């Protein structure tokens, strides 16, 4: 009778945790974790050391033929169950489970449940020596493999390999397709395993020569023919396939990166080809440009957070405020001329000044104060002040808007004295300024200093030739 009660509340706890763990593992697909539990999951890497040590102690004592202290077994099993459950919570946060995580989860869960079974049998003294040795050996293997997979998940399969992490160089303006683009992709995703030191599959991808030479399975790439090229074949295999590259657990290539490799091979896998030698409609050019251009939204991620209600409060029937895209706090603001103009509508925008990246105030009877508000918009990239009463002294207020890319000041009284201000805006790319007070000389000075700036002074005197009868380049 006394034996039956061995364990007391701990027995109930172990039974309860086991059922809970089994339930979680079986119904994983349906489970969605609340934040708190996801957070608890983060303790898994700390907790996991306890059951490993305690279970190993119990196992070795058992294998050594000694009586295992029941308290030790109890604590070890509870630790194992808690660790497995927190591990489950942690794994739930991962988007797509690779096979490493899959095996780790089932092995870890299996170890915990097997340990619980051992505890239950031991508690009721139902085990003989043979069964208990079998269980202990099984647990030993389980702990070993679960731990091994777990280690690979956190540290990567090549944790012990020599790392060669360098700061990534910026892609130059007119990159060499092989050196600056293709090699960069390979370096990022392939060369950790296919380098002179590691040479997985006898393949060295650090140079074009190595790529052409190939590895165990023969040539890696055949210029002009991506269909026959081993590298493309392997990249395109389904992820479950043994031969798929990069192997399980490694970061796979982005779809666009595969397309770049494919297209580069189609065009002959040259190492001298440059971006500007590609035709405008060539898909490779588009892909490479996409890769070079940093995500527009990323640079706005640090802007102050805005509530939708703030935007609603600030907008009126004549002032439209919208986010540049969903999930960003960058704003695009348009104001249309209302029957009665009230400067306050514009001045109120100073609350969100830092968030404004596009601002259209064209055609409004703007005053000094409004321009001061505009000057606060430090992230402004696109500003329309055309057909407003702005003057040179107003424009001078905007001298610190260094992010400005597009500025429209046509049909205003702005003139030569603003040349200095405009030249100081060194990110300015487009300036629209027909019907302004600029003189020929001022205009030339404007064009001269900033080579990136495109100045559009309208059709002006060229108009007759535009509307003239055909003139052809025969």
């Amino acid at each position, binding site marked *: 009778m006394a034996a039956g009660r061995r364990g007391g509340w701990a027995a109930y706890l172990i039974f309860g*945790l086991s*059922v809970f763990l089994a*339930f979680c593992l079986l119904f994983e697909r349906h489970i969605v974790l609340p934040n708190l539990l996801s957070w608890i999951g983060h303790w898994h890497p700390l907790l996991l050391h306890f059951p490993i040590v305690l279970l190993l102690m119990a196992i070795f004592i058992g294998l050594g033929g000694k009586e295992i202290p029941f308290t030790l077994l109890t604590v070890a099993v509870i630790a194992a169950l808690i660790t497995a459950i927190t591990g489950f919570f942690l794994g739930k946060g991962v988007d797509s489970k690779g096979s490493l995580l899959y095996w780790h989860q089932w092995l870890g869960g299996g170890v915990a449940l097997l340990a619980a079974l051992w505890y239950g049998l031991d508690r*009721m003294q139902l085990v003989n020596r043979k069964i208990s040795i079998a269980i202990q050996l099984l647990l030993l293997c389980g702990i070993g493999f679960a731990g091994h997979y777990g280690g690979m998940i956190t540290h990567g399969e090549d944790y012990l390999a020599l790392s060669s992490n360098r700061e990534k160089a910026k892609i130059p303006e007119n990159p060499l397709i092989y050196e600056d683009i293709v090699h960069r992709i390979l370096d990022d995703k392939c060369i950790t395993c296919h380098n002179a030191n590691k040479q997985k599959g006898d393949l060295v991808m650090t140079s074009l020569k190595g790529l052409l030479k190939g590895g165990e399975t023969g040539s890696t790439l055949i210029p002009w023919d991506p269909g026959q090229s081993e590298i493309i074949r392997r990249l395109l295999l389904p992820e479950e396939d043994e031969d798929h590259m990069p192997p399980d657990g490694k970061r796979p290539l982005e779809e666009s990166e595969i397309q770049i490799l494919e297209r580069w091979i189609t065009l002959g896998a040259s190492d001298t080809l440059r971006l500007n030698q590609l035709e*405008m*409609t060539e*898909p490779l050019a588009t892909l490479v440009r996409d890769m070079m251009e940093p995500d527009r939204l990323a640079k706005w991620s640090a802007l102050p957070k805005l509530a939708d209600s703030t935007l609603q409060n600030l907008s009126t*029937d004549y002032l439209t405020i919208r986010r540049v895209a969903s999930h960003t706090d960058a704003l695009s603001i348009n104001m249309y001329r209302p029957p009665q103009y009230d400067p306050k509508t514009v001045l109120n925008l100073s609350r969100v000044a830092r968030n404004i990246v596009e601002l259209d105030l064209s055609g409004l009877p703007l005053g000094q104060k409004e321009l001061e508000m505009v000057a606060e918009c430090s992230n402004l990239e696109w500003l329309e002040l055309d057909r407003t009463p702005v003057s040179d002294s107003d424009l001078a207020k905007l001298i610190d808007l260094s992010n400005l890319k*597009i500025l429209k000041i046509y049909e205003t009284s702005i003139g030569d004295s603003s040349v200095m201000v405009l030249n100081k805006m060194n990110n300015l790319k487009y300036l629209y300024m027909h019907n302004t007070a600029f003189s020929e000389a001022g205009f030339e000075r404007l064009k001269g200093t900033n080579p990136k700036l495109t100045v559009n002074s309208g059709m002006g005197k060229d108009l007759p030739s535009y509307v003239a009868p*055909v003139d052809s380049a025969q």
Partner: protein
Amino acid sequence: MENNKKAAENPLKVNRRHFFSQLSVGIGSLALGSLLIPDLFERGRPAIQGNPPGIPHFAPRAKRIIYLFQAGAPSQLESFDYKPTLSKRMGEDLPDSIRDGQRLTGMTSGQETFPLMPPAIGFKQYGQNGTWVSDYFPHIARIVDDICIVKSLHTEAINHDPAITFFQTGSQLSGRPSMGSWLSYGLGNENKNLPSFVVLTSRGKGNSQGLYSKLWSSGFLDSKHQGVLLRAGRNPVLYLNDPEGVSRSDKRHLLDQVSSLNKLHHAETGDDEIESRIAQYEMAYRMQMSVPDVMDVSKEPESIIKLYGEDCQVPGTYAANALQARRLAENGVRFVQLYHQGWDQHGNLPNEMAGQAKDVDQASAALIIDLKQRGMLDDTLVIWGGEFGRTNYCQGKFDPANYGRDHHPRAFSIWMAGGGVKPGISYGLTDEFGYNIVENPVHINDFHATLMYAMGLDHEQLTYKYQGRRFRLTDVAGNVIKELLV
């Protein structure tokens, strides 16, 4: 002895009390686990909403579209798709291998031969890339470095109504929302004092096909997304102006009273449609001011009048509409749809085409130049084109001076400019007969997907649930042609 007997009967040493207490722990743990399944006891939850309508999915290239629709289908062979082979093989029968079982309209299916007909007009090369443009379009030829000519559009429809309906709504059968309505639904109004989707029509002297308001209908979307037809003349929007003897303050008073009654009703029923009706009344009230303001071109300077051509002062002409389109775009209208009728040249093509081209050539080019000098070409996408192409063979009597061409869905040309479209390029290629596409085909679904992409919308995400299924402009097809975009 007693104990042994018990042990033999009950090897697990469990009595009823233990059994139940263990069971309760087990069931308790299961219940705890089941708490982690969020909708275990809920059925038929409403579908997960994606992005709220009214905000682009990602940073857009274009904010608005001006669509210069050439209704009736202008011939690609007399405009932008230059095929010298047609002159070399003039009069020869179109090889069956090229026609390849193409379904014909009733107008030429009875024809015994399909003699190849060269264009009656010359072509010249223009711009940095030496793009061929016919002499019918001298002004568009001048801006060829600013536009992107797509020579490989194709459609399934072979007759006007299904073809134009397909272009406008993504389906050959009518009833779906127009693309302008989809964009209005997806992106909302830029200017709350004007509709986001405006339609302007004009008519040339060439053979015309009907235009029906279903082309700018909002279909199953909220009717506020419907295209608003602005008429030429003193009364652009029907019934917008107050009747004689009603002052603006009377109107204000009326609206306030009606609105308070409507609000009462809304408080009672909670029907959102009532709120949107109140908003529509208010918008119409503001439009009484904003529409005449936008439509008034009298303040446009002489240079602009010259640019668009003298015709732009005559309300109802294509040139006037093109100028109007710029003014509407400037005032935040999301989608300006122009139609110019009269491009259906089944006969008398050289004459009619010359007249049609004269109607639209200068004003179309002027619009691009004008948008460019205002910096609006950066965020305004302009599209020029018809609903399909025309055959490379002659319809009716073979007469190089006075011939016709039938409908041709397999390949035709349009052009686009601004709004993130690559300037100065040609995309897609047809065979030497100009009959089939040999490189980079662009289906209408692809075209729609690309336009939406330029506007910052994912064509697969912008959906509307109606009658039990989700609809999109591109239905179940469409790929974004990124090569067209900068």
